[in-house]
């Protein structure tokens, strides 16, 4: 069940007046939104709107230019964040020379693994049981994406930040992502996903946060893009 009955609980992740600029060019913001346990929120926007940058800021890799991020009500530091967040980035983080299983075993060693799950079961969970010993460079783009999803699945974290999780996947893959998201949300986790609109999370009506690409012209007061936290 996703939807509107989670707002009585304290917010898992909160962003207040969050903005990021590079070389004084605004990339996104100021944004205000809150994410609660059990929610899947979709960040929409065209290419170049700053969706990936927003996820990187929320994961702690980049420092915001202004504004604040709060985790469980406390201000965020990278040290507090890292045990609680898994980031699925555009590049994936897989070594091409290692097999799918070796990549997952490394991730498990580095980040730990979810209770009751192993690298093998995570791989099975994304439909790649027979591919454990295949070097990642021999996998197709869709299969590589599934391995990365397995890595996220394996991580013992409550908050998923997924950048374009549907990219490169076929119809079965898309259904897989939705299944994983639904199970994660029902188990008390939360996820923030980006998509440029092609395929969206279909379970219930997810909250959407639109990001608008900033124009190239510099005006004194660039119009503030408010993340319309749809209620």
């Amino acid at each position: 069940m996703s939807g509107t009955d989670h707002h009585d609980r304290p917010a898992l992740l909160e962003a207040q007046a969050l903005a990021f600029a590079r070389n004084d060019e605004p990339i996104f913001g100021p944004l205000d939104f809150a994410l609660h346990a059990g929610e899947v929120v979709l960040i929409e926007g065209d290419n170049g709107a700053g969706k990936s940058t927003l996820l990187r800021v929320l994961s702690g890799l980049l420092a915001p230019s202004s504004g604040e991020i709060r985790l469980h009500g406390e201000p965020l530091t990278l040290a507090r964040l890292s045990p609680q967040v898994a980031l699925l980035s555009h590049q994936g983080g897989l070594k091409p020379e290692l097999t799918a299983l070796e990549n997952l075993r490394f991730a498990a060693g580095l980040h730990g693994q979810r209770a009751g799950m192993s690298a093998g079961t995570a791989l099975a969970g994304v439909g790649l049981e027979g591919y454990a010993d295949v070097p990642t460079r021999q996998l197709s783009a869709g299969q590589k994406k599934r391995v990365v999803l397995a890595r996220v699945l394996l991580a013992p974290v409550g908050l998923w930040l997924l950048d374009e999780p549907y990219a490169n996947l076929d119809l079965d893959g898309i259904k897989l992502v939705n299944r994983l998201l639904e199970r994660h949300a029902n188990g008390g986790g939360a996820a923030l996903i980006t998509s440029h609109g092609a395929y969206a999370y279909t379970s219930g009506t997810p909250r959407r946060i639109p990001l608008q690409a900033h124009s190239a012209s510099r005006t004194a007061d660039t119009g503030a893009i408010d993340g319309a936290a749809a209620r």
Partner: protein
Amino acid sequence: MKPGSLPAACAALMRRDLTLVWRRRGDALNPILFALIVVALFPLGVGPEPEQLRRMSAGVIFVAILLAGLLALDTLFRSDYEDGSLEQLVLSRHPLSLLLGCRIAVHWLTTALPLIIVAPLLGELLHLADAVRWVMVCALLLSTPLLSLLGAVCVALTVGMHRSGMLLALLVLPLYVPVLIFGAGACNAAQMGLPYAAPLLWLGAALVMALVVAPLACAAALRISLS
């Protein structure tokens, strides 16, 4: 070891790096080949007289190994940066400096240690005096980790830049100068019959400090580069 704990993370990282080197073990020979080529060119350039070569031998071998190490430095973070694994290291809950220290250690083990093993052979090519050979190996054992640690800080600053080779060389040169002076200086002192303990001790002291400080500096530099 509990998965996700610090020892498990370091072990997983080192195991991964050793596996990666093993999968591309042909490439691991490149630094040795390069050092061999540099050393082989010197007699062709300055003449084969044994006396002249003997006087230069320790210094030339040091420079050759230094240059080979410089070439190998590029592989330290590049592939991790390009496929996104470096981000995963930064995002992990463990101190980045410790993880980078493990990375640098495996890198030294797989690029510099083979060079040190080959060094006496290179010495034979240049008629290196017997008395100096073990001083040279000692000096290399102390200097090459220093070169790896100092080089790693500079690589962290230029990570992700295309064609950063010349810039990297420019950045590491001022850091390498003292290491080269003391390392090759110890060998030259031994060759001249002068006491050689002092420069080796300086190298040792510098190595101990670098072991503590360089991974921290490397992590700070990486955070700046990735921001």
